[in-house]
C-alpha cells in the first residue's frame, strides 16, 4: 500500500494489495490536497463549497484507493476523475434542487466571495476566482484541470472525452476569455 503514496510522486505506480494505511493516506493527502482543493475551488468559486467537496473527494478516494489500477492511467488522473465527478455531482444536485424549489435555490452558495473570504483571500485571488466563475462550465473545468490540477492535455482529453488538440484549443480560448474578464473587471 506504500506505493499508493509513492504514486503521488510518480503518478503511475500501483498500490500494493491490501488496505491503505494511515501513512499512505497521509502521504497522498499532503501531496494532493493543494491541487485537489485548487481544482475544486476554481470550479465552485466559494470556499465553503470547496471545503465540503474536497472533503468528499478525499473520503471517496480513501474508500476507493485499493481499487486503483495503474494500467488504466496515472494516479493523479484517477484522483482528479474522482474530484471532477464530485464537482459535477454537486452542480447536478444544484440544478435538481433549483428545479424542485425556488426556496432551496437560496441555499445555493453565492458565486461572489463572502466578506470573510475577502478578508482571508488576497485581492488578486478573489478577483481571479470571480473571473473564473464567469467562464462557461466546460472552460472552467478544463482550465482547472490544466492549471490547478496540473494534468496534461492527454489526461484531460481522456477524462473529458475530447480530442487532445481540442483540449488545447479550448484551454487557449478560455485563457483569452479569462484575460478579457479580468481586464473588463479592471475597466
Amino acid at each position, binding site marked *: 500500500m506504500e506505493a499508493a503514496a509513492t504514486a503521488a510522486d510518480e503518478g503511475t505506480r500501483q498500490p500494493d494489495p491490501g488496505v491503505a494505511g494511515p501513512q499512505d493516506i497521509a502521504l497522498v*493527502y499532503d501531496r494532493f490536497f493543494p491541487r485537489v*482543493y485548487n481544482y475544486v475551488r476554481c470550479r465552485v468559486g466559494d470556499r465553503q463549497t470547496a471545503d465540503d467537496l474536497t472533503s468528499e473527494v478525499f473520503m471517496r478516494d480513501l474508500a476507493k484507493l485499493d481499487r486503483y489500477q495503474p494500467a488504466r492511467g496515472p494516479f493523479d488522473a484517477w484522483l482528479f476523475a474522482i474530484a471532477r465527478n464530485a464537482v459535477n455531482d454537486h452542480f447536478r444536485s444544484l440544478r435538481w434542487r433549483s428545479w424542485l424549489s425556488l426556496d432551496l435555490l437560496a441555499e445555493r452558495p453565492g458565486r461572489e466571495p463572502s466578506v470573510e473570504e475577502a478578508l482571508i483571500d488576497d485581492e488578486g485571488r478573489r478577483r*481571479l476566482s470571480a473571473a473564473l466563475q464567469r467562464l462557461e462550465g466546460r472552460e472552467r473545468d478544463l482550465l482547472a484541470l490544466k492549471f490547478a490540477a496540473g494534468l496534461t492535455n492527454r489526461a484531460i482529453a481522456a477524462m473529458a472525452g475530447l480530442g487532445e488538440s481540442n483540449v488545447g484549443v479550448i484551454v487557449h480560448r478560455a485563457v483569452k476569455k479569462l484575460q478579457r474578464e479580468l481586464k473588463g473587471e479592471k475597466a
Partner: protein
Amino acid sequence: MNERDGAGGADREAEELVQRLCETDFSAASGVRESLRARLLAEAVRRRAAAPRWARAAVLAPAAAFAAVVLGLYAAGPDAPSPEAPPSPGGDRILVLAPKVGGRVLSLEAVLPESPERPDVALGRVEAFDGATSAAVLSTVEGRVTESKTSRVVRWETGDQVFVLETRVVALEDIFSTRSMGTDYRRL
C-alpha cells in the same frame, strides 16, 4: 505599437495569466485542511483494523479456486494413477525374449550369461525350450558381440539365417510411445 507588438503583448499577458493560474494557491484559505487530514487518518486506521478478514479471503479465494481446478484436471486426466492397478513387478525393466535359431529358441542365459547384472533387462524364457542348455547352444552357434556404452549386440550367423540380439538401455516411455494418426496407443 504595431499589430505584431500588440499580439506579442497579448501573448505575454496570457502567459502571465497562465503563470498566475498555476501559482495561485487557494488551499491556504481552506478551513478543513487539518481537520480533514485527522478524519482521513482515523478512518484509515479503522478500515485497516477491520480489513484482515476480508482482505485475506480476497487473496486466498483465487488461489484456492486455482488449486481446485488443478486437482480436478489431474484427477480426470488419462495419466492419473488408478487405485485398482496392481504395481508392476518388473518396474521399468525391459523384457527381452529369447531368439530363435534354426527352429529352436535360445535361452538368454546362454547367449547373455552376464546380462542379469543389468537391472533394466529381464530375461524372458520360453518354457518349451528350457531343455536346451547353454553349453549345447554355444557349441552349435557362435555370436559376434559388439558393445557400446548403452547397448550390446550379439550377431549370429547360422548358415541360412542371420540373427541379431540387441539389448540397449531404453525408457519405458520409448517402448510404448508408438503413435499413428494421432492415436496415443497408451490410452487404448
